[in-house]
């Protein structure tokens, strides 16, 4: 029995890999954009292929080939997505991030329709992946349209709301005993684990609220729509499952706890705003006329712009002779043409071997101190973890809380998996636990570099990983045995 189940899963796996390979191959054919096929014929071929693939998949499934049939329906959904992009290519629609987000949203709607109409779990997973990437691109598109003036913390909140929406959907499907209920459940756990894992990185935490809490209109509207959708779905799911006795207080409180913990943690990272980043000197191009005059030692107004003072900004022989003496400029003709007079046949360059203008960076002393940096006209603040690895006490505190939230999410997954006899969830929880251990181990290596430290960490780490591997395997077996007993 076990062997048969294994073989079936294997056949499903290779069929899905086959479907994915075909879809990637066709995607490359589309990207090649072969001119010899007229546009309308390309659309006809791809749309025909999409419809034919769906028909083939459903027919195969109805004729006792459910796994291969399912993989072919997945191929159909991938081809539907490609059809959207092909039509967009033919009509030369917007290639910006907003354009990409629009296409992803249209694709998602179609793939979701296919998932439900053709009862295709694989299409549902493709659709959920598409909507996840859409959310990211849509947020970046809003950022792009507002010159990146809003904090990515809002993206984290949007993803948290999407996690809530997924949980709500899993409850709604549980209420209706829908075939997708378990997929939504697994996806919700996998999604929240990935989300908590990403948030646990020190590099990311100081960046989340780098531009404060100001919110753009687009992001705000998205936040409201997703909040309402999440609240409505969760309410419907909780009411439905409670009426059906398909949920208990322990699960509800755990779910509420993890969402609140994630939300509080995201907001808590605001404590690090302005404490991690580089303070660098503005370039002359960023100065106003008055600032340019104040920085006359290395900037000058030329061609209606404030430019860095160097020989290269003088574009002909006569201009070159008017350059400040300290630059030691001289006009060089291309190919030894001494009489060259304009920048098409010569250039103005310095005869000095060393840099004529030596400047001391006045801003770097304000690294990791946004307030002191931004009050200086000549300095520019860029939120950046790598501006200095000296993490403050608050930084460590926030990082520890982030890791505790991740650990909580892992334990919740394992607890739910063992309680409801779900080996898939147990495996998922164990995988993330192992991933967390490896990631933090690499993180410590990066933080505590040095020959002796590295040597000790590697030896100690190797022993811990070997022991950990043995314990993990033992733990996993015992958890799976428990789920088997139930």
């Amino acid at each position, binding site marked *: 029995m076990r062997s048969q189940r294994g073989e079936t899963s294997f056949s499903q796996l290779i069929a899905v890999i086959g479907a994915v390979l075909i879809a990637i191959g066709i995607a490359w054919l589309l*990207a090649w954009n072969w001119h010899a096929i007229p546009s309308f014929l390309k659309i006809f071929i791809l749309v025909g292929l999409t419809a034919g693939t769906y028909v083939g998949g459903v027919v195969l499934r109805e004729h006792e080939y459910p796994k291969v049939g399912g993989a072919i329906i997945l191929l159909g959904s991938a081809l539907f997505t490609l059809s*959207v992009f092909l039509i967009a290519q033919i009509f030369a*629609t917007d290639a910006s991030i907003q354009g990409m987000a629009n296409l992803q949203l249209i694709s998602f709607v179609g793939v979701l*329709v296919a998932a439900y109409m053709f009862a295709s779990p694989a299409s549902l997973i493709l659709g959920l992946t598409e909507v996840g990437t859409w959310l990211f691109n849509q947020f970046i598109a809003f950022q792009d349209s507002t010159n990146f003036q809003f904090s990515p913390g809002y993206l984290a909140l949007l993803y948290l709301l999407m996690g809530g929406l997924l949980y709500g959907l899993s409850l709604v499907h549980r209420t209706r005993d829908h075939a997708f209920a378990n997929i939504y459940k697994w996806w919700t756990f996998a999604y929240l684990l990935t989300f908590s894992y990403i948030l646990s990185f020190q590099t990311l935490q100081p960046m989340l609220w780098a531009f404060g809490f100001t919110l753009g209109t687009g992001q705000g509207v998205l936040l409201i729509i997703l909040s309402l959708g999440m609240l409505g779905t969760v309410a419907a799911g909780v009411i439905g499952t409670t009426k059906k006795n398909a949920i208990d207080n322990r699960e509800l409180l755990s779910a509420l706890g993890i969402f609140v913990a994630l939300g509080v943690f995201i907001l808590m990272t605001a404590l690090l705003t302005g404490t991690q980043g580089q303070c660098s000197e503005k370039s002359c191009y960023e100065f106003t006329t008055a600032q340019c005059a104040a920085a006359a030692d290395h900037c000058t107004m030329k061609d209606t712009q404030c430019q860095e003072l160097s020989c290269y900004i003088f574009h002909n022989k006569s201009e070159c002779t008017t350059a400040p003496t300290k630059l030691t400029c001289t006009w060089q003709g291309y190919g030894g043409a001494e009489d060259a007079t304009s920048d098409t046949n010569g250039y103005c360059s310095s005869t000095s071997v060393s840099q004529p203008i030596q400047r001391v960076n006045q801003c770097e002393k304000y690294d990791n101190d946004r307030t002191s940096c931004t009050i200086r006209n000549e300095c520019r603040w860029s939120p950046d973890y790598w501006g200095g690895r000296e993490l403050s006490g608050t930084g460590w505190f926030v990082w520890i809380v982030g890791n505790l939230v991740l650990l909580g999410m892992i334990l919740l997954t394992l607890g739910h998996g063992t309680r409801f006899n779900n080996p898939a969830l147990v495996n998922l929880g164990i995988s993330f636990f192992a991933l967390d251990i490896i990631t933090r181990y690499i993180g410590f290596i990066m933080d505590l570099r040095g020959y002796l430290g590295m040597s000790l960490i590697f030896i100690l780490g190797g022993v811990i990983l070997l022991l950990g591997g043995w314990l993990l395997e033992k733990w996993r077996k015992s958890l799976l045995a428990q789920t088997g007993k139930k």
Partner: protein
Amino acid sequence: MNPAYTKLIIGLGILLGILAVFGLYLGLPLLTGAEATLATQPIDPFDPLRGQYIIIRYEIGTIPPVIEFSPPKSSTADRASPITLKEGDKVYVSLKDDAEGIARLTKVSSEKPTSGLFIKGIVKRVAGNQASIDYGIEQYFFEKGAQFDTSNLQVRVKIDSSGQARIKELLHDGKSVDMKYRNLSYKS
């Protein structure tokens, strides 16, 4: 009929409907629009799903950030007062052909003109004395590896009555661009 097949027919109907509506929406300006030729300044990137394309910057892609205020007819607002554009604003650029047949900007307004040829755009960026406008026709996809002269390029577009534009063809010195395609091989 097998319920799975009934669902298949309904599902296919919805999916093909989505693609048809999407295609029709994009194709409408090409079917019903008026023609205009625009001057350009192109560059050349790549999209992983749609392939090679050029980004086309139009002469009308940068306008002064202060434009004429065109309030709705019902409004009593002062028609003479100018407005300063900000990112995300919608603008209507009125066009008129010059002696060489290139459509040039004649007026920019915040309200849809009632007559004449005009194109709708969105303010992408405002910096200093310039506002960058996107018209949704800033890209043109072509076969991977194909080459053509991008100097003195113009774009023939079709613009529908709402101001929405689609690219019809690329022109070089007023004639259809001569694309040079690579020979087909397995390494193509």
